[in-house]
């Protein structure tokens, strides 16, 4: 098995790594780079816990080869807060108690951020469909939807 050298930007920083040809980006992030914020809930793109952005597009990092990321810019949950300052979505998730166990939270935050960048004023239905690729088993989604809508409102005011 021959390893592949990959050069990317992750959360704005240049990152180089070597990975196996069949290794997923999720495994690279978690096992090689120590970025364990993206979680593996299924490994088949059905739960969204491994959500990241690649060149601004939301994707499941379990459905991307590490090798494919060469030349791309990757955004993960670890890059969401700017220094001490939490992203409004992160803050609103805490305020609304929009997490119970927290395993799905990084993926949902990454997806919600991508959603609001695309649609700053989503309706409840749009939030619900926008987050349909992220499974949460604890909350019943109620408080998640509230937190996202509240964050959207705050971000629009800002």
């Amino acid at each position, binding site marked *: *098995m*021959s390893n*592949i050298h990959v050069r990317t930007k992750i959360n704005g920083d240049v990152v180089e790594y070597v990975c*196996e*040809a*069949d290794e*997923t980006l999720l495994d690279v992030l978690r096992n090689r780079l120590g970025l364990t914020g993206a979680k593996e809930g299924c*490994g*088949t*793109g*059905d739960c*969204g816990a491994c*959500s990241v952005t*690649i060149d601004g*597009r*939301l*994707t*499941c990092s*379990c*459905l*991307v*080869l590490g*090798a*494919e990321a*060469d030349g791309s810019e990757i955004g993960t949950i670890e890059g969401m807060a700017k220094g001490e300052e939490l992203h409004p979505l992160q803050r609103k998730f805490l305020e609304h108690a929009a997490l119970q166990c927290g395993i799905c939270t990084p993926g949902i935050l990454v*997806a919600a951020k*991508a*959603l609001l960048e695309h649609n700053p004023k989503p309706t409840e239905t749009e939030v619900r*469909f*926008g987050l*349909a*690729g*992220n499974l949460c088993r604890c909350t019943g989604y109620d408080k998640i939807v509230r937190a996202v809508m509240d964050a959207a409102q705050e971000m629009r005011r800002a």
Partner: protein
Amino acid sequence: MRYERPTSLKQASTLLAKEKGSAYVLAGGTDLLVRMRTGFIEPDLVVDIKQIPATREIAITAGGFRIGAAVTGAELGEHAKLKKAWPGVVEAANLIGSKQVQGRCTMTGNLCNASPAADSVPALVAAAAKAVIVGPKGKRTIPVEQVPVAPGKTSLKKGEIVESILLPKRPSRSGDAYLRFIPRTEMDIAVVGVGVSVTLDAKGICTDARVSLGAVAPTVLLVPEAAKALIGTKVDKAALDALAKACSAACRPIDDKRGTREYRIKVAGVLARRAAQIARKRAGGK
């Protein structure tokens, strides 16, 4: 496994043709990686075609649209002209998986995965789309319904790659629609899918139609009898009844974990009726 990232179709085709083991094309990867993960396939070679410029663009041509093999669902949804001309096709492509999957998945991948339940395929078939295939012996263009031949099997020969999908230019007063049934509101594989495309004349009479069914047979079906039920009518109740009957009659489904045989037959008719009404409305009919 080897991973290659050629920058031309010729290179890609040569890599695939020369590989002695199992070789796969990677565009979005949303099916390929799942099959690798579940141990269903163990590729010796994966050829990533995303660095090939032709695969990445949606071109407007004299004949209609040329959609590169690596164009993602999200990109299709953002293309206003394509959406206006072929709303049913774009809708269908946008139903594949989640927002996350939309960022990667492609219609060509959906087609070449050769699942009878692929969402975009019935819409493409109804749209009379064609696949442009590049291989060691050159280029050929075939109707999309001739690409899948059985569940998981295509008519592509060793070294061949689908370069793009062609959608014809739209006559005026045309409309298409795709509807599928899934138990949840998102994230499921179609239990039944129906694509309908119609063209009306000035009086609202259907002059041309194509109807296609997914998940009711080993491959996506083009159903000429169903189209016949619409042509020459105003797509009224009687025509819709005949359409539903023709669609149900064309089904050759199985019982599986996603639905029963009876259910698929019945719902194929229901969805055909609903899809035809949307297509008619989009074509300007009342």
